[in-house]
C-alpha cells in the first residue's frame, strides 16, 4: 500500500483525536498565557482582562536586567562545560563495544530522567556539612573541618552540569556514531597522535554539530527551574525560577506570563539559529 493523499473525509478520521488534543490542550493554553501577559493585575492575586504593556515594561528594570543577564551567562557556562566534557566522552563511547555502549546509555538515560528535585536534593546532600564531600577530605586529612559548600554559585553550576551532561551526550551521540571512522584512521596513518587526530580532524569535522549542541544545551539549561533555588542564593535565581516564583508565590500571573512569553521568544530565536547551523552543515 503506497502513501496516498486522503481521498474521503473519513480518511482524516485518525487525525481527529490527536489534532483536537494538541489544539485544545497545547495551542489554547499557550494562547491563554499570551493573553494573560497583557492582562491587568488586581490586588490579591487576581487579574482582569485588559490590554496593557505594564508587564512587559517591568523588563526594563535593573533587577530584571540582572536576572536575565545572569540566566543567559549561567546557561552559556553550563553549555560550554557540558560540551567540553561530553565531546571526548561521547567520541570514545561510540568507539566502544556495543554492550558497553548500552550500559552507559542506560545509566545516562536514568540520570537524565531524574527529577530536578532529586538532583537538587542529592547535590545539596553531597555539599552539606553533615554528609558532604568535605567529610571525606577531612578523613583524608586534606581539610581541617567539614563545611557546607552550598548555597553557592559553584554548587548551582555543578548541579546544572550534572543535569545537562547526559542530555549533551545523547544529543552528540547520533552525529558521532555516523562520523566516518576512516577520517581518524587516515590521520593516524599519517602519523598524528590520537589526541592530535581528535583535535585536528574530529573537532573541525563536527563544527556545526558542536554549534547546534551548544545551543540545544543552552536552551536545556535555560529551562532549569529548581537547581538555582535549591543550591544557590536568591542572587543566583534564573528567569525560570523567577517565573515560577511570580506565578505561585507572588500570585502575579500577568507578569509571570509576560516573562514566559519573553523566554519563548529567546528560545525560538535560538532554535532558528540551530536550524540555520544545521542547514549550513548539510550544504558543506
Amino acid at each position: 500500500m503506497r502513501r496516498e493523499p486522503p481521498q474521503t473525509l473519513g480518511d482524516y478520521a485518525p487525525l481527529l483525536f490527536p489534532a483536537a488534543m494538541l489544539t485544545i490542550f497545547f495551542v489554547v493554553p499557550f494562547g491563554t498565557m499570551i493573553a494573560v501577559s497583557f492582562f491587568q493585575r488586581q490586588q490579591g492575586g487576581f487579574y482582569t482582562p485588559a490590554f496593557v504593556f505594564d508587564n512587559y515594561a517591568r523588563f526594563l528594570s535593573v533587577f530584571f536586567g540582572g536576572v536575565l543577564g545572569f540566566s543567559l551567562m549561567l546557561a552559556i557556562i553550563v553549555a560550554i562545560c557540558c560540551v567540553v566534557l561530553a565531546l571526548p566522552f561521547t567520541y570514545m563511547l561510540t568507539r566502544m563495544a556495543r554492550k558497553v555502549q548500552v550500559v552507559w546509555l542506560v545509566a545516562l538515560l536514568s540520570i537524565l530522567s531524574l527529577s530536578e528535585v532529586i538532583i537538587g536534593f542529592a547535590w545539596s546532600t553531597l555539599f552539606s556539612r553533615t554528609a558532604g564531600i568535605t567529610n571525606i577530605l577531612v578523613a583524608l586529612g586534606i581539610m581541617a573541618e567539614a563545611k557546607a559548600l552550598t548555597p553557592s554559585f559553584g554548587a548551582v553550576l555543578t548541579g546544572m552540569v550534572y543535569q545537562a551532561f547526559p542530555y549533551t551526550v545523547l544529543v552528540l551521540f547520533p552525529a558521532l556514531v555516523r562520523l566516518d571512522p576512516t577520517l581518524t584512521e587516515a590521520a593516524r596513518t599519517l602519523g598524528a597522535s590520537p589526541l592530535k587526530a581528535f583535535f585536528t580532524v574530529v573537532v573541525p569535522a563536527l563544527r556545526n554539530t558542536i554549534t547546534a549542541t551548544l545551543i540545544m544545551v543552552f536552551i536545556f539549561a535555560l529551562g532549569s527551574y529548581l537547581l538555582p533555588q535549591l543550591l544557590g542564593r536568591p542572587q543566583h535565581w534564573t528567569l525560570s525560577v523567577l517565573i515560577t516564583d511570580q506565578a505561585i508565590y507572588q500570585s502575579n500571573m500577568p507578569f509571570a506570563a509576560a516573562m514566559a512569553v519573553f523566554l519563548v521568544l529567546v528560545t525560538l530565536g535560538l532554535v532558528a539559529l540551530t536550524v540555520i547551523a544545521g542547514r549550513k552543515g548539510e550544504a558543506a
Partner: protein
Amino acid sequence: MTSIFRKAYFFLIGLFLSLPLIVVAGVSVNQKQTLAFPPQGFSLSWYGEIFLNPEWRNALFASVTLAMLSAALAVAIALPLSWFLWRRIAPWANIFQLLGVAPFTLPPVITALGMLTFWATVGFYGQPWTAVVSHAIFFVTLPLVTLSLGFTSIDRSLVEAASTMGADERTIFRTVVLPLILPYIVSGYAFAFVLSLNEYIVAYMTVGFTVETLPIKIFNALRYGYTPTMASVTVLFVTTAAVIFGLVARFGDLPKLLGAMSSDGK
C-alpha cells in the same frame, strides 16, 4: 586515544555521575532520622517507610497512577497521528507533529505556566485529571518520536502484499502494522512513564495544592523537614528508571532509538 587516558576519563565521568547517588544511597540506610554520611548504623526501615507511612504511600500511588495514565494518553495521541503521517501524503498535517514536539523543546516552565493559566481560566484548576492531560501533552513527544521511527522502519511491500491478498485497512492495521510497531509503542510508553514519574513543575503548577506526587512530596520535605525517606525514594526512582531503560535496551535497539531521537529533536 590512548587506553589509559580513556579509562581515567571514563572513571572520572562515572564518579561524577554516581557520586551524588552513592551519597544518597548511603544516607538512605541511616539508623536514626539523620542525613549523615557515612551512615550511622544500618537500617532498611526508610525503604519500608515509603510503603508504610500513609503520606509517602499516597504520594507513590498518586505518582504511579499519574504516570500510567498520562503515558497511555500520550501514546493514544501519538499513535493515530504518526500512523496518519506514514499512511497519507498530507504535508500540512506535519504541523501537528511540530505541535507535539514543541512542549518538550521549550523550557518546561512555559508549558507548566500555560497549563496553569488554561486550567484556571476554564475552571478545572486543581482537579487530579488535569495533571494527566497536562503530562500527556508535555510528554507526547516521546511516543511520537519513537513511533515515527518505528513506522519508517516498516517495509511497505509487506503492507502492499496484505492489501493485494484482499485485506482491508482495518485488518492490515491489526495483523501487519500493529505487531511491527508494538516494540516502539512499548518504548514510547516507557519513556513517557519514567519522565512523568519524575516530573515536578507541570504537576506542581496544575495540581500542586490538591495532590502530592512523589517529586512534590520530596520538594516539600526539603523545605519542611529532612528525612532519610527522601533518600530511599530517590534510590527507588533511579533503580526503577535503570530497570525500565534496561528492559527497553534488552528487547529493543537502544542505540538506534537514541540515534533517531536526537536528530528528530533538532
